[in-house]
């Protein structure tokens, strides 16, 4: 060890306090206790939410509402009555369901909107009224890299993004001078979720998961979640998984609960299986514009339905067939 250790200059600091503290030791302890035995994790959406989510939890969803999203789980979460969530917010539609019921208090924010349809009126209402109490800003990659830091088991990760902007100033990032190159980089704190929700193409009953096509930030978020709840379009025999172990993106020991949810991403799309239900999505966007119509939407499409099967029955086989991709 050298004697003349130079300190590393901090050149800028985001002003927001951390919504979720960085504590890699308790994350390690938690992970040590998770079962490593191959046991079935199968349960219903309701049971998973009941067992693994508490009021005030910090939660996250992957990918986002119109694409491979655990929406059947989101509906169960909304129906559960649990509340006061802190969230990592990248969201389209699924976060809106939570905002509609006023369940969100703090957001590590990157994007909540309606993509080509613009601004979420639900977000506007909840933020502008102050019912979402705190918003901390990040870039989209920034949030994913924060999951990546957690997935690596390290307390932060460097990036060259966010520097020089208000996005940085309203974040909890710290910018330093690199001790190797002198260049400035932003350090992003690791983000460990209390509960992560991910929807996948297929899994075995233990929770070994495969995803087709792009993987979004599923790899990183799965590894950054203390409790991980997975919904899958299809449950396959474990021998199918073991035939192609290179395709397992989420291994079973990460998973706490597994739900079989065909059309679990509806009204979003699912790679290789079905397209997004554009008319329904547009109807929801239309309903957003007025608190009363959105309440009716939530009642009809979420609250009055006991479970995912009831939703599928309501959508109807004809409509599901229409959005199903032809081989």
């Amino acid at each position, binding site marked *: 060890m050298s004697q003349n250790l130079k300190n590393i200059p901090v*050149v800028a600091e985001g002003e927001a306090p951390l919504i979720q503290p960085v504590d890699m030791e308790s994350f390690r302890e938690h992970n040590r206790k998770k079962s490593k035995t191959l046991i079935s994790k199968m349960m219903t959406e309701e049971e998973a939410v009941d067992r693994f989510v508490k009021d005030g939890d910090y939660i996250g969803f992957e*990918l*986002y509402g*119109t*694409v491979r999203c655990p929406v059947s789980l989101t509906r169960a979460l909304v129906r559960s009555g649990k509340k006061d969530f802190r969230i990592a*917010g*990248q969201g*389209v539609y699924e976060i809106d369901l939570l905002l509609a019921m006023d369940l969100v208090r703090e957001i590590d*924010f*990157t*994007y*909540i*909107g*309606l*993509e*080509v349809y*613009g*601004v*979420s009126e639900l*977000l*506007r209402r909840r*933020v*502008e009224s*102050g019912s979402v109490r705190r*918003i901390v*800003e*990040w*870039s*989209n*990659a*920034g949030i*994913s*890299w924060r999951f990546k830091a957690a997935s690596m088991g390290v307390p932060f990760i460097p*990036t*060259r*993004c*966010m*520097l*020089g*902007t*208000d*996005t940085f100033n*309203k974040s909890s990032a710290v*910018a330093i001078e690199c001790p190797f190159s002198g*260049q*400035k*980089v*932003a350090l992003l704190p690791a983000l460990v979720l209390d509960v992560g929700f991910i929807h996948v193409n297929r899994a075995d009953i233990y929770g070994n998961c495969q995803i087709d*096509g*792009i*993987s*979004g*930030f*599923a*790899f*990183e978020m799965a590894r950054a979640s203390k409790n991980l709840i997975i919904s899958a379009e299809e449950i396959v025999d474990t021998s199918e998984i073991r035939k192609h172990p290179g395709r397992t993106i989420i291994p079973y020991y990460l998973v706490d609960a597994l739900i079989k949810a065909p059309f679990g991403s509806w009204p979003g*799309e699912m*790679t290789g299986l079905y397209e*997004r239900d*554009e008319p329904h999505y547009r109807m929801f966007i239309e309903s957003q514009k007025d608190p009363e119509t959105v309440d009716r939407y939530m009642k009809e499409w979420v609250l009055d339905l006991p479970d995912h099967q009831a939703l599928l029955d309501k959508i109807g086989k004809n409509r599901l067939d229409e959005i199903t991709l032809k081989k």
Partner: protein
Amino acid sequence: MTTTYTPSELLICLASRVMEDGTTAFIGTGIPMLAASLAQSMHAPNLVPIFEFGGTGAILEKLPLAVGDMRTFNKAVAASGICDVMETAQRGFVEFGFLGGAQIDCYGNINSTVIGDHARPKVRLPGSGGANDVGSSCWRTIAIMRHDKRRFVNKLDFLTTPGYLTGPGAREAAGLAAGTGPYRVVTNLCVMGYDKKSCRMKLLSLNPGMTVQEVIDNTSFELLMAEEITRNEPPTPEELRILREKVDPDGLYR
């Protein structure tokens, strides 16, 4: 075949023409998708579209509706995830990036986060999304905006995505990669670039029927002028044909 066209079609054609063959481009939702698809069919068959959630080198046979949807990796050369793609940009592999937003200033900085105060905003907007990353890492960014005084402002309410920040040298001083920054702004009135020395926005060319005065009247900050201000060609019949028959046959963006 008619030579009349919609304002959207003009924007798509102008954005398309900016992209160069044999380069990579970060594609966001909406107009950039159509522009990239049009470019692939016109002058840039080797344009590589990159989508933030993992799609690289897709063949854009059907118009994507979202930056993560199946069409963004249709017959793609790779489908990975957001970290891989954003790190690819961070390593310098992505030439062009598209940006949009509620406000832009003379240095090409963009606001897509809030109007008003951050803690108690007048309007809460959708936030950075991948915009900050694109604006930080891509070599050249192209902003597509509607042109009016409320959008082309003297001072942003919030600096979401870095342009040239406070001017020459500011990006490098903040730690952003050398040689990167805003390149073009495409609007319903004109196409603008940036002055090399001052890093300030500069009018390059006018859309059909537009005047310099109209541009000035719709811009809050003082706009520099190119030595010679040219005219943007309207969409050619060939561009319109491809746009309408191949790129957007359902007319979603007509």
